C-alpha cells in the first residue's frame, strides 16, 4: 500500500499541476490520503488503486467520476492535493493572478470548457475498460 500512496501522490500532482510533486506537499498528502482511504470500504479503495494503475490520465478519470458520481475517492484526493499545494510559496502564481489580462481571462474560460468536454468524454471511455472488482 505504501508504494501505491507514493505513486498516487506523484500522479495526482502531475495531472493537476504538470510538474513533480515537492517533498513537503507529498509528505502531507500521504497522511491525508490514508485518512481518506479509511473512510471507504476496502473494496472501493482497491478499485481506486486498480484504476489509477491502469489509467494515466487521472484528470479525465477524476472528472468522469465526479460527473457520474462513481469515483469519490479520487475527487477528494484531488481536492486535498490542491489545498495542500496551495500552502507553499512556490505555487503562489498557480493560484494568484498578478497580471491584468481580460483577454487571457476569457480565453482561459474557453479553454477550460473545451478541455472539460474532452476530458469528460475521454474519462467515460477509459473507465469502460476497467471493471470494478465486486
Amino acid at each position, binding site marked *: 500500500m505504501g508504494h501505491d500512496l507514493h505513486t498516487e501522490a506523484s500522479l495526482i500532482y502531475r495531472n*493537476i*499541476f504538470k510538474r513533480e510533486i515537492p517533498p*513537503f506537499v507529498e509528505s*502531507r498528502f500521504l497522511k491525508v490520503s490514508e485518512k*481518506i482511504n479509511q473512510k471507504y470500504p476496502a473494496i472501493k479503495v482497491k478499485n481506486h488503486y486498480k484504476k489509477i494503475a491502469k489509467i494515466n490520465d487521472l484528470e479525465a478519470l477524476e*472528472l468522469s467520476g465526479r460527473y457520474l458520481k462513481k469515483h469519490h475517492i479520487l475527487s477528494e484526493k484531488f481536492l486535498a492535493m490542491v489545498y495542500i499545494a496551495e500552502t*507553499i510559496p512556490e505555487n503562489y502564481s498557480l493560484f494568484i493572478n498578478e497580471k491584468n489580462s*481580460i483577454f487571457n*481571462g476569457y480565453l482561459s474560460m474557453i479553454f477550460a470548457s473545451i478541455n472539460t468536454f474532452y476530458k469528460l468524454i475521454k474519462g467515460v471511455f477509459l473507465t469502460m475498460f476497467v471493471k470494478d472488482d465486486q
Partner: protein
Amino acid sequence: MINDVIIVGGGAAAASAALGLSNYSLRTVLLDVGFKPDIEPPQLNSDLYTFRKKNKIFDLVVGEEFHGLTNLIYNEKLPPKLIAPYNYYISKDVQKISPTEEENFKLIQSFSKGGLAAGWGAGVYEYNNDELKETPIHAEELKPYYHALTKEIGVAGQLDDLDKYFGKSEDLLQPIKISLKSQKLLQSYQKKREKLHREGMYMGLPRLAILTEEKNGRMPCDYSNLEPWYPNLPYIYNPAFTIDRLHQQKKIEYRSDILVKKWGRDKNGFIDVFALNMKSGESIVFKTKKLILAAGTANTTKIVLTSKNDYLSRLPIYDNPLIQIPIIFPGFIGKSFIKREFGMTNLNVIFDFKDQDLLLQGSLIELNSPARGTFFEMFPFSASGNMKMIRNLAPAAMVLFLYYPSQDNVNSVVSLDGNGQLLISSGNYTFNKGILKRVGRNLQKLGVLTSSLIFQKPPPGYAIHYAGTIPMVENPEQPYQCNISGELNQEKNVFIADGSLFSKIAAKNITFTIMANAMRIGENVAQSISNE
C-alpha cells in the same frame, strides 16, 4: 458561598447579560467551558497574500493535524473559519462534550470563550416592532441596550437606504472600506435606485461589529485578509473581550473549564448548579440566588430538559433558511488579484417583496480571504480548467448569503434522549422559485452574472442562528415558556437570556437582538436583587 447570580455560558448572550449586571455591586460568577486558542499563531506583520508569496501557510490554512481539511476527511459541513487550525478551538470537542444526533439539521455549537461569536460574520442589526411582534417586548424597550452595546463593541456603518430596515443608530463608526467590486455594484445600484426600489430592492453598507478606528486599546481593521485564519483579531468584536474586561474590573468572576449540567434546589430554596470540572473530572456544585442560562439555544435547552428530567418533550427550534448565490462581475474576469480588501460582508441587500409579504436580507461577501482551494470544489471544470478558473474567475466572484425569516412549518424539533444526547430533526425548507428568479433578475440588472440554477441551498441549521425552544410570552402557561423578564415558568429565579427566547427570527442575524435582550434581562435581575 452563595452567589447572587450565576451566568452560564461564555458567548454573546452571556457577556451581554454580565454587562447588564455590571453596574450593580453583586457577586456574579460566569461559568464557562471556555476553550481558548491552543497556540498563538505566528505574527505575519503583513497581509495574507504578501506573506504567502514568500512563506508557507500550511500551519495557517491546513495544519499538521489537518483541521483545515475536516470537512473533506470527516464529511462535515462546517464553515471554513471554524475549521481553520488556529480557530479550531471554537468548535473543539463539541461532539465529545455534547453529543447530538441530527436528522436533516446541521447543529453547530461551541464551547469556546466567546462562543460561536468568536467566529461570526459580525453583522449587527436592530429588530423593529414588526420583527418582534411574536415576542412580548417592543423595539423601544431594547433601544437603550442596542445603544449601550453599540458603544461597547464598536459598530461600523453609515445611514443609507437600509436605515429603515437596520435602525437609525447614531453611534456608528466610519464604515469599512468596501472592495472595488462592491463599489462598482453600489454605483450601479445608485444609478438604478428608483427603479430597483419599485422592485423592492434596497442596497447599502453593512452594520458590522468591526472597528474602523482604535477603541479601548483594540486596533482598527487593517484589511489583511486574515479574518478566517486568525483567532481574536482585535478589530472584530468577540464577547471574550467584554468578559475579560468585566473580570479584570472585578465586576464578575469568570470561571473556565466548568461544564454546567443542570440545576436543582436546596432545602433553603437556593439554586444548586451542578457542573463538571473539565480539568479534574470532578463534579462540583455552585450555590446561587438567581441563575441566568445563556449558553446558546441548544445547550441552554439541554440544561433545562436535563434539570427537569424530561426525555419526552419535543421543543421547536428555528434557524434562518439560507441560500448562497454566487455572482460574477464580468469586467473583473482575468484581472489581477487585489490583495488588501475587506474579506467579509461588504454590502447588504434587502428584498422587500410586499406583494408576497416577504422580506429577505442578503449579505454580499468578498471572497479574497478563503483558501483558493475552496473554489476548486465549486467549479465544474476539469482539474486544469478549475485551476485556470481559480486564477481568472475567482477574483471576479462574490457570494450573496440570502437569509429568509425562520419558517415555522418545517417541524424542526429538539429533544433529549435517555443518554442525555440532544436529538434534532427537521423537515425541508421551501423556497418559492418565482421569488428566487426575481432575486436573480434584480441582481442581473446591476450588471453581474448569476442564475438561479447555481444557487446553493445548505441544510437547515447552516445559518447558525438558532432560536425559539423556550419562548418568551406575555403570560406563560406552559412549562417551556418564559415571562417578559426571561424567568422560566414554574422555576422561580431561573432565567434564560439567549436565542431560546425568540420564537421568530427575521431575515437577518438575530445575535445583536439576543445581546440587547440579554443585557436587559441581566439588568432586570440585578434590580430585582437590589430591591430584595
